């Protein structure tokens, strides 16, 4: 049978990063198809190509066997492809019906909007879906689940034949998931092709007939669900040899430096407790959205927390006070370099000395080039490639920007270094430099907490791996027992290993 929609040999690169290499996919009418893979496996890029957001660099998109090219999301929609995202983006102050028919409102004489026709057709769509939402109520205040149903109704309104659902259940409760699945099954049985992306294997097995596994931007396998087990799928997802070994130096863990006790922020993470010793690199692993970055932000004081305590070297840290955290010897290299790590318009020098601006001053004054010397010293130690340290950091490459962020924090001589996605979006050469640096810091007695979504990095660098799943710490795996499978099992909530 001819697939409704097929991808053949699709490549897509962003700069030097290859997001998709020879990606393949076949979606059939009346079938729900699951797409699974680790963070960064290329699922989102693939969805964006289906949605017409990105065009492929190479390869073909076939609709009913005919090659097509989408120049924009509108083209994809016209071809009958609808995408439901994890968090729908409705216009909160418009009514549900207006949201569904945005840009395509039914008209009556004098090009006026025919509100009653719009309401009727909305009711009709909701009737088909078997849901009850008042078409006249504003979208504001609808639950995420109801917002997704509105999006699905919108997809139905232009006769979508392919429905792509990108982690739709991440924010839903059990009952809501059931209702969504009932709708999805009904659509499927009506002949729609559904692409379902999820980290939750129980859902994949409950809804889908076929599974495609991706890894590192490549198609790995597609198989009937009946031939698969959860174990098998996980193994296929992570099954890669750890060829790139990281130069982790052996160290003797020292005193406990960072103690986190029962840390809770409602809606983000719950009862998180762990310690990090001097000389230790502890990785905080888990899927995107598991609450890892949020924990690091709360420890550093960017966000407040609802319960729990943080101690650095035995001293309790004031919540919500980053200057106090810095004074206590804590440093946080944040996830988003451009928005949080650096002030892009300011110079390398100003960025590299910002957290130390008081330490570098004398009598409250900054003079005599103390900033220039400090910045020059650290830029040299980390081999930042720049023409001048007075140039804005925005002129540097991603890898060099990351080095400036590291220089900025290492110059504070932290006792506890928290680093969120240390090598995201930087080239391979700089990557191993960063890893060597972290290893060296640990050997000098710094306690390192590394949040990372890259399993090879986690396994190569960490003395211990803490795994978070949906806001909870579910596993604490020592280095000699940590492998891709044990971490992935814990991260996907398959095994609640004793912490």
């Amino acid at each position, binding site marked *: 049978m001819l697939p409704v929609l097929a991808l053949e040999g699709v490549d897509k690169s962003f700069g030097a990063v290859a997001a998709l290499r020879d990606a393949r996919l076949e979606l059939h009418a009346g079938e729900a198809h699951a797409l699974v893979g680790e963070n960064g496996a290329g699922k989102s890029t693939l969805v964006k190509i289906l949605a017409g957001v990105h065009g492929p660099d190479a390869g073909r998109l076939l609709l009913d066997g005919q090659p097509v090219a989408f120049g924009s999301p509108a083209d994809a929609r016209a071809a009958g492809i609808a995408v439901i995202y994890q968090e729908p983006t409705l216009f909160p102050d418009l009514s549900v019906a207006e949201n569904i028919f945005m840009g395509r409102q039914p008209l009556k004489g004098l090009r006026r909007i025919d509100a009653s026709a719009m309401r009727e057709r909305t009711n009709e769509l909701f009737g088909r879906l078997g849901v009850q939402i008042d078409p006249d109520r504003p979208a504001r205040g609808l639950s995420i689940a109801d917002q997704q149903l509105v999006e699905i109704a919108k997809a139905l309104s232009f006769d979508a034949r392919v429905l792509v659902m990108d982690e739709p259940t991440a924010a839903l409760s059990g009952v809501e998931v059931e209702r969504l699945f009932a709708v999805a099954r009904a659509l499927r049985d009506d002949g729609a092709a559904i692409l379902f992306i999820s980290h939750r294997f129980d859902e994949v097995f409950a809804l889908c007939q076929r599974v495609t596994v991706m890894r590192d931007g490549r198609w790995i396998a597609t198989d009937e669900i009946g031939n698969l087990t959860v174990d098998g799928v996980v193994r296929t997802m992570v099954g890669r040899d750890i060829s790139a070994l990281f130069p982790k130096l052996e160290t003797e863990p020292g005193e406990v430096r960072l103690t986190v006790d029962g840390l809770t922020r409602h809606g983000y993470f719950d009862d998180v407790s762990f310690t990090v010793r001097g000389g230790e690199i502890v990785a905080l692993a888990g899927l995107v959205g598991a609450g890892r970055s949020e924990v690091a932000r709360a420890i*550093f004081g960017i966000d407040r927390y609802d319960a729990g305590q943080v101690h650095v070297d035995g001293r309790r840290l004031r919540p919500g006070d980053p200057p106090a955290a810095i004074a206590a010897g804590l440093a*946080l290299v944040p996830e988003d370099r451009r928005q949080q790590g650096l002030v*892009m318009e300011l110079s390398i020098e*100003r960025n590299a000395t*910002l957290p130390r601006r008081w330490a570098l*001053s004398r009598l*409250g*004054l*900054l003079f005599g080039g103390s900033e220039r010397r400090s910045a020059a010293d650290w830029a040299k130690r980390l081999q930042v490639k720049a*023409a001048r340290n007075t140039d804005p950091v925005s002129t540097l490459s991603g890898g060099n920007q990351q080095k400036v962020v590291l220089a900025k924090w290492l110059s504070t001589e932290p006792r506890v270094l928290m680093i969120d996605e240390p090598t995201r979006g930087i080239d391979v050469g700089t990557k191993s430099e960063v890893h060597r640096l972290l290893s060296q810091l640990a050997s000098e007695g710094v306690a390192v907490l590394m949040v990372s979504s890259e399993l090879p990095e986690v396994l190569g660098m960490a003395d211990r791996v803490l795994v978070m799943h949906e806001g909870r710490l579910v596993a604490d795996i020592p280095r000699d027992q940590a492998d891709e499978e044990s971490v992935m099992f814990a991260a996907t909530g398959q095994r609640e290993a004793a912490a």
Partner: protein
Amino acid sequence: MATDTLVDPARTAEAAPPAWRRLLGSWDAILILALLVVVLVASATIEGVGSPRFYRFLVLEAIPIALIALPMTLVIITGEIDLSVASTVGLTCSVLGQLWYLGVTSLPVLIVLSLLLGAMLGAVNGVFITVFGLPSLAVTIGTLALYRGLAYVVLGDRAIADYPQAWTQNAVAPIPGTVIPWFVLVLAALAVVFGVLLYATPIGRSLYAIGNNADASTFAGVSVLRTKFWLFVATGAMAALAGVFWTFRFASARADNATGLELAVVAAVLLGGVSIFGGRGGLVGVLAAVALLGVLRNSLQLADVPANALTIVTGTLLILSVVGPNVVRMTRDRLRRRRPLTTALERTSS
């Protein structure tokens, strides 16, 4: 990484262009040049411009504007604005007059109480903006009306004018041997204080960081909200100082004192090259802009240009001030891009 070879390592160590050359192309330099040209042309063509009397009135008029422009520069650099300053001046004048009327006769006590009042009015702005997270534009438009209204509550349409002659004469007394009012020395001292704060202290560094990216500043340990709060307090106190000067200079406390002054201040700060979006600009340009606007206004007045035309000139300059620095920056960037070394460097930064 192969592109790295495009950069000759010997040349990456190239020194920054000399300070004088950077200065020459800057907006500050353009303003100072414009100021000199306007002074020379006006002195040559308009009778009375350039006389000692002209300078004396110019300085007297510029002092309150400059006093408030100092903290306003810092506020706008952090990406906020305070439009309530003129009303703060008015309310301070009214309370000062009323206190005198009620029998407070000690000058130091009156000054200290006025400054405290100003700081308090600034703190009210600060609380709304930093604690409740409201936009400063909206908050200070509100307090612009509120503080002016309170000034009328205090004084109504009375004018309190019976201060000791010594006070009112001393306020405008010249520096011995010159015609320039001595109060300009107070302004100069405060300008130095604000200049050092902005250019040579950790606080100054954090102001530019906040204006460019408040999020990254928080991550770097800058207390963004606390810093902004104290800036509004300082602005209130400086407006109050301007109010004290205003009262004794005109020997009159009225509820409508300094109405509209906030626009003169904001115009000077923006013309001075401070970006309304925050993060860019400095005090040198702002002080030059205060002088330039003052010279223009006074010269045109002497040339019998009607008041309406003066407003048009100020408005045009204000628009130029927003466009001008951007044009200068764009031109400079384009020039820089034309230089081959930098092009190679930029290519490596992909």
